């Protein structure tokens, strides 16, 4: 019987993990420099955190891993965290509510069923959440942070796609739909169903021009803001604050030389967005995204506090980086080979070498000399230590550990 990996999961090999750690450390360094603090939330959360209107869309909820725990006789289900933002909001309400400003970041796995089993059902995210700060400065800071991480990782040709949940909602509010229909339509648009918007035109012909222009904006490069402003001032004056918000952000991005586009249908299952939504693309692949979710924390029972955040998709970044360009130079690697009688000394030498900053390990019968910068042979008779440089084919002898270290330094 073959031992199989569970369907839809992946192993991370040593090479994968090296890439993973490079990304994680670039992300963490950037966040720390911007004053964010790292947090970690549990893998298991209660299902009800994710079910209310304004959290995740039903199509996303249909794919969460939920089950009854061993003490779940009340019927209260738990889930494997399907999203990073909602648990952070829960954490904020739980233990940080007194803070006026919480700048938090995390590296976490999220779980979502995927029927083919070809894509992975467990995905890793690097996320940052900025709770307590208003638009547009907070949103711009998050975009800057995300772009800085990508720059650190030497990923070029990044494109931002902007949308605004407020705009979509204002448009839907005009259509005299029931609250239920509005939510349903919002979900469809967020899930990328542009046909839903087309249908709206039939219902309210007077909005045809606005909707068409909105759809046409897709893919339109910088400089759209004036056009957008004029359009909405005429047909949908209540959208003015959203347009202003979008415009300010767009102006900032332009000034910073960012490449961006407008793409109105870009929420992807996250019903909690209330303001600007941004997605980060490299070519046609989405490598991250985020946005403003001012209503989420009050909805979950916290105080009325504005918030926004983003996440970068770690696996997608792993495929894009070149680890050899990013890896910091490492200390020399040393293999210690001791005669049987002097095995203990081998470990003592390893300890001293580690303290001095070297990578050193004892010979276990399988390592190859070629994989090491130096080998140290420990003998019973003089000379006690023979140091060999593999590349330079250099051999030197030493009588004590101190002498050995001096030779390595020298």
């Amino acid at each position, binding site marked *: *019987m073959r031992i199989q990996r569970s369907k839809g999961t992946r192993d991370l090999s040593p090479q994968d993990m090296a890439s993973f750690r490079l990304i994680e450390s670039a992300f963490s360094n950037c966040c720390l420099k911007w004053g964010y603090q790292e947090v970690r939330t549990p893998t298991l959360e209660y299902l*009800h955190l994710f*079910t*209310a*209107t304004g959290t995740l869309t*039903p199509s996303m*909820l*249909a794919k969460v891993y939920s089950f*009854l725990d*061993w*003490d*779940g*006789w*009340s*019927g*209260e*289900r738990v889930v494997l965290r399907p999203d990073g933002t909602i648990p952070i909001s829960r954490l904020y309400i739980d233990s940080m509510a007194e803070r006026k400003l919480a700048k938090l970041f995390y590296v976490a796995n999220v779980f979502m069923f995927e029927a083919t089993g070809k894509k992975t059902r467990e995905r890793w995210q690097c996320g940052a959440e900025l709770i307590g700060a208003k638009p547009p400065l907070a949103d711009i800071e998050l975009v800057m942070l995300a772009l800085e991480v990508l720059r650190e990782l030497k990923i070029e040709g990044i494109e931002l796609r902007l949308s605004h949940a407020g705009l979509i909602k204002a448009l839907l509010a005009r259509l005299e739909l029931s609250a239920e229909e509005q*939510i349903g339509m919002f979900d469809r648009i967020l899930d990328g169903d542009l046909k839903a918007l087309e249908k709206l035109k039939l219902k309210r012909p007077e909005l045809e021009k606005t909707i068409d222009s909105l759809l046409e904006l897709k893919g339109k490069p910088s400089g759209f803001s004036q056009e957008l402003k004029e359009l909405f001032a005429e047909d949908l004056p209540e959208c003015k604050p959203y347009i202003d918000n979008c415009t300010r952000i767009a102006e900032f991005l332009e000034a910073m030389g960012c490449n961006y586009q407008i793409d109105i249908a870009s929420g992807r299952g996250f019903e909690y967005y209330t303001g600007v939504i941004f997605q980060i693309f490299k070519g046609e692949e989405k490598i991250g995204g985020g946005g403003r979710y001012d209503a989420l924390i009050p909805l979950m029972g916290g105080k009325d506090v504005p918030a926004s955040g983003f996440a970068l998709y770690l696996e997608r970044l792993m495929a894009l980086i070149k680890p050899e360009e990013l890896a910091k130079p490492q200390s020399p690697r040393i293999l210690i080979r001791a005669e049987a009688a002097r095995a203990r000394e081998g470990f003592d030498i390893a300890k001293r070498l580690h303290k001095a900053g070297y990578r050193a390990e004892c010979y276990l019968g399988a390592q190859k000399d070629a994989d090491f910068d130096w080998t140290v042979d420990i003998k019973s008779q003089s000379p006690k230590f023979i140091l060999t440089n593999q590349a330079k084919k250099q051999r030197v002898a030493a009588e004590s550990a101190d002498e050995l270290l001096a030779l390595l330094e020298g």
Partner: protein
Amino acid sequence: MKIKNLKYGEGALYAAASATGTVTVEALRGKAGTIRIASEYPNLAESFAINTRLRHFSVFPLWGGAEVYPPESADLALVGTAEEFPYHGLAPISRVLSVSAFLIANRDSWKDKELSQMVAPIEPALLPEKAERKPEGKRRQRTKTPYPAPEADKDVVRLALPDGHQQAHTRRLLDKAGIRLDDYPSEKGNRRPRADLEGVTVKVIRPQDMPLQVANDNFDLAITGRDWLTEHLCQFPSSPVKELADLKLGWVKVVAVVSQDRDIADIRDLSESERALPIRVASEYINIADSYARDNRLNRYRLIPTWGASEAFLPEDADLLIENTQTGRTLAQHNLKIIDTLFESTACLIGSTKRVASPAKKERMESIIKTLRRAAEEIS
């Protein structure tokens, strides 16, 4: 895959609440506490709750009798019925699904095997004309009782009695105890018989559902089988439900069973059997079966939940069966043999380990426990 709508047995699945209140989807969505949904279709109930965007809900999976739960023991019941509302005092708040009998097939078999001859006799021509779709039950004008559901009187003891084949010996026990009960067992399917005990209300539900209901404080006392209590505790080891009295009736043993054709003498033979495929364990007691398979280190096993007639699964569709039996005769008739006895089960009175706040209620409960215990002693 669905092959054909057989166009009989038509009905619908409704989310329904007690007809005495004005429960609407809107009210539920805005409700602060947990919304309890009782149903024999727990997955449909969860999907209903998610799509309705209920904020905080719990689903009580049931084996039957969902209609008797609201309003005291649940806020909503997902009930399947072809009857008109009000149905057992319930009013519909949402139609969840239309149902009728369907012919279903395995997708691969349907593709690869010639099944048309088998299906031919079930052609529509041979079927009775499609029954007229019954008009949907008119929504009854509901009185304006505000939501949430009425709170239970804290002094009243809520007793659950079993339906089905356990009714006969439960009745015998109650008679012996001198507890008079109207209409139990009920020919009309009445699930709320009246008892001559002051401060006691009685509901008739499935014995399988009782431990979970007692754990959730929907009932104070219940008469069920030790098998179902054990099943519950295997699933939820720290549940507050405990056995209060052995009622000594309805003795069965819960056994591990294999086909007589297999060269297996005990469970070790099965766990050591070098098979390429996982061991398939079928049972109505899915958590007992799981725990038994785990404890016996069955290397790789799959559980097959059944709803009765489990004997028929062996040997083609299962390798091991966890089943109850009195004499073992039925098992032998199906060419099966018992390789292990897990435990013996009789009817028992169960309750919660949680403290009872009301002294009056506590006294009533103790009196019932004592009376039933004495009656059980006398019968045995």
